[in-house]
C-alpha cells in the first residue's frame, strides 16, 4: 500500500504494484525484478506484503460506508436519467411516429424544443407570437383516462405521471 515516505524509491515501489500507473513498459521483467529488490530491501513487515495482488481499486472494506440496499443503481443509464419515461409521439398526417424520453427533459420548454427539432415544425406555446398560426402545430396528449388535452395546462410534475402519448396536431384543425 503506498504509504512510504515521499522518496524516489517509494514511488517506483508504487509503480510496480499499482498496475494502473502508466509504467506499462515494454520491459515487464525488469519491473518485476525491481519490485522484488524493493520488497527485500524495505523494512515493511510481511503482513503488508500479504496481498501484493491487491490493487488500489480493490481495497478491502473501503470506503467506510455501511452496505445499503441500492437496487435502483443498476438501472441507471446516465447520471441525469435514473429512470425513463418513453412515450410515443405522432404528428398529424404522418403515419410513423417517434418515441421520446420525457424524463430527459427539464420541463415544457425543453420538450417543445426537442419536438420542434424532431418534427421540423413550430409548436405553439402560450407565450409565443401567433403570427403564422396556419403553419403552426399544437401539442396535445392522451392522459391515463383516455382523454386528449392540451399540453401545458398543469405543472410539469403533474403532467409526467398522467401522460400516455403525445400528438402534434395542426393549429387550425382544433
Amino acid at each position, binding site marked *: *500500500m*503506498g*504509504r*512510504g*515516505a*515521499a522518496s524516489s524509491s517509494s514511488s517506483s515501489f508504487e509503480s510496480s504494484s499499482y498496475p494502473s500507473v502508466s509504467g506499462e513498459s515494454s520491459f515487464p521483467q525488469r519491473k518485476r525484478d525491481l519490485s522484488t529488490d524493493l520488497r527485500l530491501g524495505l523494512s*515493511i*513487515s*510481511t*503482513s*503488508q506484503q500479504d496481498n501484493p495482488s491487491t490493487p*488500489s*481499486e480493490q*481495497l478491502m*472494506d*473501503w*470506503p*467506510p*460506508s*455501511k*452496505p*445499503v*440496499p*441500492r*437496487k*435502483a*443503481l443498476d438501472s*441507471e443509464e446516465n*447520471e*441525469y*436519467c*435514473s*429512470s425513463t*419515461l418513453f412515450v410515443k409521439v405522432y404528428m398529424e398526417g404522418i403515419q410513423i411516429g417517434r418515441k421520446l424520453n420525457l*424524463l430527459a427533459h*427539464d420541463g415544457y420548454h425543453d420538450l417543445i424544443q426537442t419536438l420542434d427539432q424532431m418534427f421540423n415544425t413550430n409548436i405553439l406555446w402560450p407565450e409565443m407570437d401567433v403570427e403564422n398560426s396556419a403553419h403552426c402545430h399544437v401539442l396535445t396528449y392522451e*392522459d*391515463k*383516462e383516455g382523454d386528449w388535452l392540451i399540453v401545458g395546462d398543469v*405543472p*410539469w*410534475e*403533474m403532467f*409526467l*405521471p*398522467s401522460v400516455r402519448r403525445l400528438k402534434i396536431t395542426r393549429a387550425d384543425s382544433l
Partner: protein
Amino acid sequence: MNYFPDEVLEHIFDFVTSQRDRNSVSQVCKPWYKIESSSRQKVFVGNCYAISPERVIERFPGLKSITLKGKPHFADFNLVPPDWGGFVYPWIEAFARNNLGLEELKLKRMIISDECLELISRSFANFKSLVLVSCEGFSTDGLAAIASNCSFLRELDLQENDVEDHRGHWLSCFPDTCTSLVSLNFACLKGDVNLAALERLVARSPNLRSLRLNHAVPLDILQKILMRAPHLVDLGVGSYVHDPDSETYNKLVTALQKCKSVRSLSGFLEAAPQCLSAFHLICPNLTSLNLSYAPGIHGTELRKLIRHCRKLQRLWILDCIGDEGLEVVASTCKDLQEIRVFPSDPFVGNAAVTEVGLVALSSGCPKLHSILYFCQQMTNAALITVAKNRPNFTRFRLCILDPTKPDAVTNQPLDEGFGAIVHSCKGLRRLSMSGRLTDKVFLYIGMYAEQLEMISIAFAGDTDKGMQYLLNGCKKLRKLEIRDCPFGNAALLMDVGKYETMRSLWMSSCNVTLGGCKSLAKKMPMLNVEIINETDQMDISADDRQKAEKMFLYRTLAGRRKDAPEFVWTL
C-alpha cells in the same frame, strides 16, 4: 448545601439531565454521590463490557432507561467478525431478576435475540421505548413479542438493523387496545408487512408523530396512512413506485396538503423521481431530509426539491447530488447544521463530489458544524478555505474514495489542509481523515485539537511518531480507531496510562505485534486487550513477533469477558 434535606438535593439534581453533568455531580462528595446515584433514572454505558450489569444495578437502583453500546465502530465496515460479542441478554436477565422498572432500552451495535425480546416484553410492565441501532440476532418473531405484550409501548425504532424477516404478522400483534404509539420505525425490515394491520394501527394511534415505513408499503397505502395521521412530524416514505396512476398521485397530494407538521422526511427506498413534486408541498417546513437511500433521486429533480427546502438543518444525501447540487444546497439552506454526503457507487469514479462542493457548503452555510463527506478528491487549498470559512466545525469527517490520494492539484500530502482544520476549529470533537497523510498531520492534531474526543485514521502516517503525537497531544481523546497505518509497539507502549483515560483503542493492519500487546496487557490490568484472530496461522503461544492483525483494547471494571468467542483472545 449540607443543610438541605436529601429530597431537596434530589429535586435539584432532577434538573441536571446530561449524563456527563450527573457524573460530575456525583463526584462532589459522598452524600451527593449517594443521592445522585439513587435518583438517576437514565444511564448511558458507552461500552457494555466496561462494567457489569450487576454493578450498574447496584449503583443505580432507580434505573428506568438505559443506553448500551457494544461492538467497536469499525464493525460497521465489516472489520469485526459477527460473533465478536455485544450480547445484551445478560443485562436484560439481570434487570429482570432485580425487578428493575425498565421503561426504555436503546442499543447500538449489539446482539439481541428473540428470546431476549420476549424476556423484555414479559418482565417490564411499563416498558415504553425500544430503540435498536445497527443491531442483529433477532427476527420479526421477537418484534411480535414486543408488540403483543408491551401494553404501553410508545416507541419502536429500528435503525439499520439486520433483522431476519419472517414476513408481516408482527404488526398484527399489536392488540386493539394498544393506542399509545408515538413512534414507529420499521424502514430496515426487508419483508412484507400486513398493510391492513398497519392502517388499523395508525388509525388507532392518535399520538403517532413519527412513522418510517419500509419498502413494502406502496404509494396508495402511504396516501391512506397520511390521511389518518395528519399530525405526523417525522415521515419515512417506503416505496415510491415508478408509475402511479393519476388518481393515487392526486390523493397523495391532497393528503400531503393536510400534513402541515412534517419536519423530517426520509426513505424513498426504490424511488423514481416523477412524483417527487408532490413533496414540494412539505419541503418549505422541513428541517431534516434523508435521501441517502434513494439513488434514483438526483440531478435536476433533486436540485428542484432542495430549492424548496429553505429551513433545512440536517441533510443526508448521496454523492450523485454532485458539486452542482451542493452549490444549490449552499445557496438555499442557510440554516444547515449537519450534512452527510454518502458514496453512491464506491467503486466508480465518475459521479461523486469534490473539494468544490465542500468549499461551497462551508461558505454558504454559516451554521454548518457537522459534516461527513465522501468525495472523489480533495486539496489543501480547499481545506484551508473551509477552515477559514467555518471555524465552528465540531464534527469533521472526510473520506476520499481513494484513501491515499494526495492533493489533487499539487500532489502534496493533505497535512496542511487538515492541519488548518484542527487549528481553526477549536471546538472540534470528532475527526476522520483520509488521503495521503504523513506524520506531520498528527503533529498538528496533537498541537491544536484540544477538544478532540474521537478520531478515525486509515492509511496515514509514516512512523510511530504519528501516533505518539496524537496520544501526547489530545488530552480529551476517548476513542481512537486506526487501520492500515505503520504504527507499532513503540507508539502503542509509549504511554500506557493514557488508555485508562480513554474508552477504547482499535488498531488493525498496523505494525503492533503480539508481544507488544501482551506487554501492554501485563502493565495495565484494568484494560482488556483483545486480539481478534481470524486466520488459523496464529495461536496464543505463537511467536510474539507476529503481527497482531486486529487489536481492540478498552478500559473495564468488569475484568475479562466470559462471552468471548474462540477467535478473540483477551491477553
